[in-house]
């Protein structure tokens, strides 16, 4: 039975903060097929194209027919926990301070035998459901869960090492002036975040939804302008030590290609909000978050960056916007590596056109702000790293993986 998590007590200011450690993250190149699946929340294994055998651990030749064609495919994640052990001694500093730690051998219905982390509610001999997760080093690991959901299962200590649960954590939403920002604030309040700081730039400028936002439980409006280094720094100085999750909702969306725009003024704003904005955010909040990556139940956990899927491939109808999103995306990759030693995850949530005013002329399907907020919460709960929200985003992802050049032409219309 998983003990439900108790709300964390106030931190003792005289105690040394436990520093974040990470387990060994080295993996072979072939094993990174698991990394990709884990990042997106899928369960995939190599399957031989020639004889159909499912194989694990990751290999470069089929152990039945020696074929080199072993692509990763979605696989049946069910099996049986054959044997378990409780590890009590380890020379690895990360695991040493997390003993005892349960692992076991799972025999998949699909064939392979996997060594897996065990959820506390899964007992030896029982049917198991497997998931691929990213551990604190950002490397893929197998987690065996009970076949059916159990009460409070998200509070399991070993599982929490691989997720970014928003419950009891303190959140900063960088821009609350937009429908997306407001939906995000509501979603985190409902899910039980202990406080939701919502950034509002230009306190002197009213915005739609302002009063309703103030009325949301546990929301605290703070001055925050992602285009102003001083504003971002000040907020980090005041609250940075007690922010566990940041959701970057700051947006700048304008239609138009590059040539048809006159001048670079709007583009400068786009870059200021999206690329420089993320840079300011990371510089101001990153160090404190990295320091607090293992600091108790409400440790610093993640920075969630909302990104247009057109960061991955430019949509010329929104050409300049796509380019700024691409700059932001590349920055997140650097930040991902920089944040990792501190046990903080950089989560990218990609969306296609939104149901918001600046995508007004775009036909459906579009993503509603509420749906985007739900996807962010889900990504944090599952510890995902790369999330695609809505039909258009998933479609772009699928086309990119097959033929990026074809997608380039198709988006150009």
């Amino acid at each position, binding site marked *: 039975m998983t003990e439900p998590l108790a709300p964390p007590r106030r931190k003792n200011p005289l105690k040394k903060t436990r520093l974040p450690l990470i387990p060994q993250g080295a993996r072979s190149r072939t*094993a990174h097929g698991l990394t990709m699946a884990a990042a997106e929340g899928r369960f995939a294994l190599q399957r031989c194209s020639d004889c159909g055998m499912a194989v694990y651990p990751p290999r470069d030749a089929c152990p039945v027919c020696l074929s080199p064609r072993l692509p990763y495919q979605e696989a049946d994640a069910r099996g049986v926990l054959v044997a378990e*052990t*409780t590890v*009590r001694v*380890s*020379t690895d500093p990360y*695991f040493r301070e997390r003993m005892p730690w349960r*692992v076991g*051998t799972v*025999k998949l219905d699909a064939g392979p035998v996997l060594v897996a982390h065990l959820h506390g509610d899964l007992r030896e001999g029982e049917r198991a459901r497997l998931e691929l997760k990213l551990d604190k080093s950002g490397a893929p690991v197998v987690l065996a869960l009970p076949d059916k959901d159990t009460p409070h299962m998200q509070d399991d200590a070993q599982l929490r090492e691989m997720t970014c649960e928003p419950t009891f954590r303190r959140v900063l939403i960088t821009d609350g002036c937009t429908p997306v920002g407001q939906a995000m604030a509501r979603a985190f309040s409902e899910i039980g975040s202990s406080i939701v700081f919502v950034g509002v730039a230009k306190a002197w400028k009213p915005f739609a939804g302002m009063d309703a936002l103030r009325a949301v439980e546990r929301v605290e409006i703070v001055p925050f302008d992602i285009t102003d280094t001083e504003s971002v720094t000040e907020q980090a100085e005041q609250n940075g030590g007690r922010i566990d999750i940041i959701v970057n909702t700051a947006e700048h969306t304008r239609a138009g290609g590059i040539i048809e725009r006159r001048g670079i003024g709007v583009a400068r704003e786009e870059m200021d909000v999206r690329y420089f904005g993320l840079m300011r955010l990371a510089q101001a909040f990153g160090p404190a978050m990295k320091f607090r990556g293992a600091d108790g139940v409400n440790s610093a956990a993640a920075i969630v960056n909302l990104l247009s899927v057109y960061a991955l491939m430019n949509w010329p109808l929104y050409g300049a916007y796509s380019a700024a999103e691409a700059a932001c995306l590349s920055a997140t990759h650097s930040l991902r590596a920089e944040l990792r030693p501190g046990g903080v995850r950089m989560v990218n949530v990609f969306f296609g056109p939104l149901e918001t005013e600046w995508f007004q002329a775009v036909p459906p399907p579009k993503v509603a702000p509420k749906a985007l907020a739900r996807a962010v919460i889900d990504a944090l709960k599952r510890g995902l790293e790369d999330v695609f929200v809505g039909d258009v985003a998933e479609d772009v992802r699928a086309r990119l993986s097959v033929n990026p050049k074809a997608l380039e032409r198709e988006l150009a219309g």
Partner: protein
Amino acid sequence: MSGSTRMAYDGIVVCAPITVPYRRYSANSAHWWIGRALQALTKRSGLRLNELDGLSISSFTVAPDTAIGLTQHFGLSPRWLDHVPFGGASAIVALRRAARAVQTGDAEFVACVAGDTNHVDSFRKTLSTFSRFAQDAVYPYGSGGANASFALIAKNYMNTYGVRREDFGKICVAQRDNAMAVPHALMKKRLTLSDYMAARAISDPIHLFDCVMPCAGAEAFLVCGEAAARSLALKGVHLLSTIERHNAFPEDAIQVRGGWAVDAGELWSMAGVGPQDVDFVETYDDYPVIIMMQLEDLGFCRKGEAAEFVRAHTLTNEGSFPHNTCGGQLSVGQAGAAGGYLGLVEAIRQLTDAPLGTQVAEARIGLVSGFGMINYDRGLASGAAILARAA
């Protein structure tokens, strides 16, 4: 298994058993330890360095060097050179290859040496880069090392065959008894069954006294022909048979048997003896569960009945089934790859009346078993040899 018998080991002599006394930690390199063993071998045999024309090396910590680098390091110019990185099966494999080299005339005097150092941080470094499968699919899961991997094997074995911890404990207690007379054994205190049962858990169900103590040390022996051995006035033993098998039974979800089960018949038929003829057994004792698998798979009892066999016998040197006669790795220590040599070197000693501890009475035939190299979730390498006292 092929219908025809393999070629016998006629004319082969295995002699000059060398042990460089173990130390828990050593700042010296593996090269130093291997060098000590080589020097002892030359002194013991009377051979000069340039007369050693065959060399087989096993070591985990001699990296970045392998056997070839050691030829220059030690000033050897062999015409037959081998590097055997098979952990606990290294001795058997080295013996098999050296014997064939001598039989065909490719080499006259083959020095088989295993040595490893143990720095304070050796063990963690070895674990995390042990194998590709370990890196990808084992080490990230609690980093419990071989203890955690064999705990899963032990748990499954206990569940499958109804084996209790007490059954494992009896083996460990007997080995400790055998080790009490061994001067360089690192475990010096007598072990009782209640000590064994009360010891702290390492990775359930494996507790402290199920585990070997890593240390620094070296072991060696010489393989040559009968005439060559006479010319050196060296007392040696005869080789009746050997087997070797790797990655056996990959279809077993969890390891319950090793390669010996595939080739045991050939081991006995080639030797012309049966299990009842064996006077002592040196199993590879990384964990008691693997000892039980060896007893079953080599033919001393049926599968799943090793616990009963252990309960029905006394495993000390004066008992009904002398087993791991110098105390094994569990009591002496595991000096890396030399752990695989410990049993074979002790077998040569028992069969030439020069044991490290107590002598098994009228020891004429000994069986040595090797095992090792947990790559993912099971030990891959296995082998065994039957040795006989020279007439």
